[in-house]
């Protein structure tokens, strides 16, 4: 009986530790890189940064709805966003992160898509935006730039 009571007590302590949290939340390895690159500067010349470990900062304005495996951060220029993609299961961004100020770190990557993949991506985007899509209008391949994220820190506004 004493063993059972101890197990129940240990479980309750564990739950207490798990529930403890603050206004700042760290995801994955957090952030450590020295300088933050402005999103507008990054998007103005994206090829310059490919392969480099960088840090970006912005409001979280969209998040992966199925697995929490990506996050869009708003740029310092209205309407622009940058995507932070993390490995499925390693880091999960919850819906509650939307609107928080996020600093994310990772390697800036460029994925050159073929035409077929570009069309599929444009179709998915059009579907999400509720817009009409015509595959024939997509005639050139896209390069998808994103931060392959290793960690992030979110602060509630």
């Amino acid at each position, binding site marked *: 009986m004493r063993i059972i009571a101890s197990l129940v007590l240990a479980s309750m302590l*564990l739950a207490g*530790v*798990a529930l403890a949290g603050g206004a700042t939340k760290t995801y994955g390895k957090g952030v450590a890189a020295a300088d933050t690159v402005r999103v507008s500067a990054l998007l103005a010349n994206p090829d310059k940064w490919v392969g480099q470990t960088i840090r970006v900062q912005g*409001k979280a*304005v969209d998040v992966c*709805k*199925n*697995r*929490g495996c990506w996050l869009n951060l*708003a740029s310092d220029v*209205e*309407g622009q966003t940058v995507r932070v993609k993390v490995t499925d*299961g390693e880091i*999960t961004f*919850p*819906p*509650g992160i*939307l*609107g*928080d*100020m996020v600093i994310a770190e990772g390697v800036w990557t460029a994925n050159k898509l073929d035409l077929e993949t570009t069309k599929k991506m444009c179709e998915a985007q059009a579907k999400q935006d509720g817009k009409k899509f015509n595959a024939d209008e997509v005639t050139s391949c896209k390069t998808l730039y994103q931060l392959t994220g290793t960690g992030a820190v979110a602060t*509630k*506004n």
Partner: protein
Amino acid sequence: MRRVRKVCWTLHREIGFLVVGLTIVYAVSGIAVNHAHHWDANYERVAAPSAIAPPGAGPTAEVEPLVLERLGLSRAQVKTTWRASPEVLEVFQEGSTWEVNLVTGQAVHRTARPRPVLFDLNFMHLNTGKGPWTVVADLYAGLLIVLALTGPLLVRGRKGLAGRGGVMLAVGIVLPLAYAVVMRLAH
């Protein structure tokens, strides 16, 4: 051998009781997250459309207070706002988001509520919280190995390893092995 079997019985019985709760946690969540590409296993999402008087697509500093006023929100209730496009302003609150078309006045209030029970089961199964739960999960995995190793030794005879039990054991081993081989060949 009799002494070994007795130890196996004891271990299997005691550990069996201990892991009932954890097994249900991991099994139920396992089914839920196996189908993560079909549904959101963690959150229940609701989109409620409504409309406000269109504030117009003016500068953000001008339209933002109008939008908040027409949505009936005070500044303290709002985390932040974002001008997603010239026509759209998004308003972020704790646990919900408003998407407002500034030209038409159409608004959608999107909320994401953690699914009762399932959210917590997935949190444990995927070890999202890390920290102390990693120890619990590792211990549980170890106990499952003990259960797996002691189980086949519990029964003797036709229903044991020498009979039907042996066939079942072989099936359970061949299934993942065959899948692993097929996957390797396919990739």
